[in-house]
């Protein structure tokens, strides 16, 4: 049996060995505070600058536009905070019904504080109706926050068009790019995006490091106050080893970007193979506009947690949008927003690949899954 087939890369990724290697000296010998005056500190400062350039390069941004944070959630919180603090007269926010909790719950917080929030619905493919979006935009809108790619289905949103539409109304546009980073080219020199969130651990850097891009001419107010780090935009002594790791991960992502085509082919093979081998299965999301690494498949009349546990027995790591695994008693908010029928929503499994995924691993999954679904369907009272 294979020791482990890790197909949950939208949850977190393996730390690239090159990243660990780049970080190690900053845990041992290069421990100086980068703000210190002596050359020992200056060397660390120099490494930080290089890392900032590496991160900026992945997004075709300026190094000055990069603010290091502790995680994607902090970046999202900061984007809302800054947009609201710099435009106190505006009282409206727009987001989507299928955002990550890091955006949804921040929007809900501001709603309780008296802001009105529009949560754009999606159709059965997970797509946004741009006419509806256009109607929602008003001069009173302080921020639009729309994810670049959905974490559960991989569906891509037309953020370029949406950002332009926001700008026509003089509205700031933020995107949570946590899932797309490193998988598709995001060119901020061209895209009219004002703020963008990134999380290190989704692109083979460790957990505990994030980034917020803030475009040069965009007004900013810090979320975390204190020292002058990050040019006064995010206080707290720099998390040097992790920033170095993020820089390395970004330069590796650039180097390996072309391999995403290979990842996409493996994903397609997995998906086609499962759809052929397992009757009454369907793909959730917009298959024509999707991340190359993500496949969200629903198996009718079986329950996701049971599938995951059986997959775990044969070394396969995946996740599910079923009620039992969503931490609530209802299936995932994304699948519900898409109107996926209950008979399918409870039986959804997300496989998310990475550049480390191999053909042999996909073959292993294709070998194991049909039998598991058959076993559980034999137990289920629902047969059709």
């Amino acid at each position, binding site marked *: 049996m294979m020791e482990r087939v890790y197909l949950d890369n939208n949850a977190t990724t393996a730390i690239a060995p090159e990243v660990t290697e780049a970080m190690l000296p900053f845990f041992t010998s290069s421990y100086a505070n980068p703000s210190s005056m002596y050359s020992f500190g200056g060397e660390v400062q120099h490494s930080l600058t290089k890392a900032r350039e590496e991160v900026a390069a992945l997004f075709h941004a300026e190094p000055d536009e990069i603010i290091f944070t502790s995680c994607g959630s902090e970046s999202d919180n900061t984007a809302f905070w800054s947009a609201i603090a710099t435009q106190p007269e505006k009282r409206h926010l727009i987001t989507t019904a299928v955002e990550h909790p890091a955006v949804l719950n921040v929007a809900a917080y501001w709603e309780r504080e008296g802001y009105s929030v529009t949560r754009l619905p999606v159709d059965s493919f997970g797509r946004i109706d741009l006419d509806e979006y256009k109607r929602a935009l008003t001069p009173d809108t302080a921020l639009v926050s729309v994810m670049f790619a959905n974490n559960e289905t991989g569906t891509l949103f037309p953020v370029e068009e949406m950002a332009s539409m926001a700008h026509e109304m003089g509205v700031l546009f933020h995107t949570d790019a946590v899932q797309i980073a490193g998988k598709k080219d995001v060119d901020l020199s061209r895209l009219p995006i004002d703020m963008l969130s990134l999380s290190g651990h989704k692109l083979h850097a460790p957990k505990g490091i994030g980034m917020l891009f803030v475009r040069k001419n965009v007004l900013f107010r810090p979320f975390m106050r204190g020292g002058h780090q990050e040019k006064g935009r995010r206080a707290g002594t720099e998390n040097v080893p992790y920033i170095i790791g993020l820089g390395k991960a970004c330069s590796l992502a650039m180097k390996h970007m072309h391999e995403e085509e290979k990842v996409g082919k493996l994903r397609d093979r997995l998906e086609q193979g499962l759809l052929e081998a397992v009757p009454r299965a369907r793909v959730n999301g917009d298959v024509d506009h999707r991340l190359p690494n993500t496949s969200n498949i629903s198996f009718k009349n079986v329950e996701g947690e049971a599938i995951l546990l059986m997959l775990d027995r044969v070394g396969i790591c995946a996740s599910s949008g079923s009620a039992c695994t969503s931490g609530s008693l*209802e299936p995932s908010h994304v699948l519900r927003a898409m109107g996926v029928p209950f008979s399918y929503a409870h039986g959804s499994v997300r496989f998310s690949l990475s550049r480390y995924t191999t053909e042999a691993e996909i073959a292993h999954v294709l070998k194991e899954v049909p039998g598991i679904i058959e076993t559980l369907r*034999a*137990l289920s009272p629902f047969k059709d």
Partner: protein
Amino acid sequence: MRFSTRTRYGLRFLLRLALEGQEKKTVSLASVARDEGISPGYLEQIVHALKPLGILAAERGSGGGYRLLVEPRCIRLEDLFVCLEGPLFALDCLAEQPCCERLGTCGLHWFWFSFALQIRCYLRTITLQTLLDAQRHREETVMWDYTKAVHDHFLHPHNAGPLADANAVGEVGSLACGDALRLHLKISDEGVIEKAGFETFGCASAIASSSVLTDIIIGMSVEDALKVTNNDIVAKLGGLPREKMHCSVMGQEALEAAIRNWRGEAPVPHAQEIGRLVCKCFGVTDAQIIRVIRENGLTSVDEVTDYTKAGGACGECRNEIAEILAAELKKGSSDTGKGAVRKHLTNVARMQGVTRILGESSDILKEGEKATLLDVDGLRVTVHIESGEKKERLSRLESRIRTQLEEDIVLLEGE
């Protein structure tokens, strides 16, 4: 850097001793060699090499073998490595008396020094106990929060599938709810459950609950089967995670529904039929809620959600559940004089409760002793105790008040 098989096999051998050689039991070298696929002769050499450490005792004769002389937590990996592998860093400049001529000027000495230091420091933090704990954790970690029994019943369910000759079928749950159970029974003319089968849609605990339910009820009379509660299912599974308790309730309800079906009554769970709908998302009635509160001694809305799912989706009915719960708790405390523990009492209720418990505590207060309530200031309750052993009485009274009345109360002694 390659570590020899001496070290690798040696660690495996010692881990086996630590795992199996508890309570002075010896472990035979031959059995370890066989199980681990190591040549017995080679393992003997390794054991011989370990002798100077003084951590092994050998016992001869039949049933002989080796055991650990020292607690696993006292066996440091560093010592094992040095013993089996030789000096970890055979560099001239790191020896106790450095003999490298470049020592004063070498720009790399710091590197070798810090490299060696870090490896040694790491090895010092690891003992045989660390390895033992990790191994045990690995063996004990069944999936997620589930017990071994849940795990076994999920992977190898008993009595799975419908019965061709069933004369009673009970169904609860639905696809929309995320779990459903159809229970099939073959009940004899004498009213004994001869066979049971189930079909379940749901998570591991739902499947395991169904499986264990069939084990419990086969061979039971219908009358006895009606006394089976969700607690029996939970007990047989060695416990369920809190948020999965509703799976056991589903089993109990399906059983009732099947028996009602056999008796020619409407095949819905009794409590669902007679009650008023409270949770619209999951279709849970007040009668069902009251029943789980009573049978399981529930005291919070979250617990009701864990057991019935009610209030777990839109949350609109949570206030209503809280009202039902409050009414039940009130009833419970007036019925028995000792209600379940409540979390937030009003000052008046707290005062009355403490007075009642003090009055009922003649088993704690010996003859001639008395406890009088002096003051209630939020959760700080002051009493005066007339006794030679104020402290002991105070702490026993406090713990009784905490279990019977309110868990955060602080009992103070005052004059």
